[in-house]
């Protein structure tokens, strides 16, 4: 897997700072699980956080808090080493998404056929203003031109599509500015599965409504 489309620096910074919505964090974490370059960037951005914490003026901590902390050391279970994936990038789903979905993965979801060739499943994630979903696109399907209003980030889990910005394949992310318009065409031969987080759709604002508008004339 060669990754050609990466996360925006602003997204990396927000992820390291911990200010992204849960749904968006999952897409970001999924990309960095497969992308060593963005992983190194996140580490760099986290260092900035460490530096900022070092520079803070301290708040007086109560004796009670200190005592409680020391009292719980004896019973705290030691943390074991994290399990390293045997073949990062070769598993079907990136670790953060797999962990969220459980062993049945994408099959556990409630897929809905929207129009011929396009199926969508919501992934419930509570908290935040963004929603998470996966979209399955049949080989060769062309989507209507659409823009991206509000925060939206897409990761390709399988297959590939091409648009004005290039070819997006497994592992790539489309972390686009709001004002970009594009017209993706899915490659022949393989179904394309995308993981998408977007700001909770206002009326007709969701990517799906926007995509479906030309079909239904709404």
């Amino acid at each position: 897997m060669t990754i050609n489309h990466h996360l925006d620096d602003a997204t990396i910074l927000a992820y390291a700072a911990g200010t992204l919505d849960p749904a968006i964090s999952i897409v970001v974490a999924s990309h960095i699980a497969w992308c060593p370059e963005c992983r190194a960037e996140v580490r760099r951005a986290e260092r900035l956080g460490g530096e900022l914490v070092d520079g803070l003026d301290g708040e007086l901590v109560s004796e009670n808090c200190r005592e409680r902390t020391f009292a719980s050391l004896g019973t705290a279970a030691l943390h074991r080493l994290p399990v390293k994936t045997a073949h990062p990038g070769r598993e079907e789903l990136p670790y953060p998404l797999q962990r969220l979905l459980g062993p049945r993965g994408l099959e556990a979801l409630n897929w809905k056929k929207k129009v011929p060739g396009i199926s969508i499943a919501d992934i419930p994630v509570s908290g935040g203003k963004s929603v998470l979903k996966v979209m399955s696109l049949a080989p060769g399907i062309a989507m209507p031109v659409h823009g991206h209003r509000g925060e939206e980030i897409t990761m390709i889990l399988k297959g590939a599509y091409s648009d004005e910005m290039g070819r997006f394949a497994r592992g790539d992310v489309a972390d686009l500015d709001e004002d970009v318009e594009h017209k993706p065409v899915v490659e022949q031969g393989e179904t394309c599965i995308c993981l998408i987080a977007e700001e909770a759709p206002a009326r007709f604002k969701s990517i799906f409504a926007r995509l479906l508008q030309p079909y239904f004339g709404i």
Partner: protein
Amino acid sequence: MVENVGSSPSSGEREHLEHLLKQVAAKRDRECFAALFDYFAPRIKSFMMRKGVSAELAEDLVQETMVAVWTKAALYSAEKGTVSTWIFTIARNRRIDRARRESSAHFTDIDDFDAASDDPASDERLNRAQEDGYVARALAQIPAEQREILILSYVEDVPQSEIAARLKMPLGTVKSRMRLAYKRLKKLLEKVN
């Protein structure tokens, strides 16, 4: 009890913090843990309170973070960053997980699936730069409006969309300022190396 700390530690102090953490990992040394507690607890409390958390909850999070430092000490490796960076990530994850208590989406830390750094050489370089306080100095060198956005994001935990609303500017401008600030920082760091 430590109060009113604030200036970044010197490289000697950073080495000392690393030494303390290694003693905790290797020997379960409570005195070394106490010294770490005295350095970090007030900063973590302040970090949490700057995010709008009550003093009481901030102390709960101090406790959770410091207990995690105790249980995870053996997982720390210097090539991932300084002790301060490592503890910042623990504190950040605790706060997020607390906020998402009912949620299925726990914050995925890189360490969950990445035991060691991918690029030790360049990481080492940045780490050294940080140890010597270059990051702090580089931060002081970027334009105030870019620094403001970084601090709002990291320290005060304000989402980018809200920074945009607060500063009455489009989200795109906030993002491009963040990008600019980050680029400048990286360039300043490359220069000193």
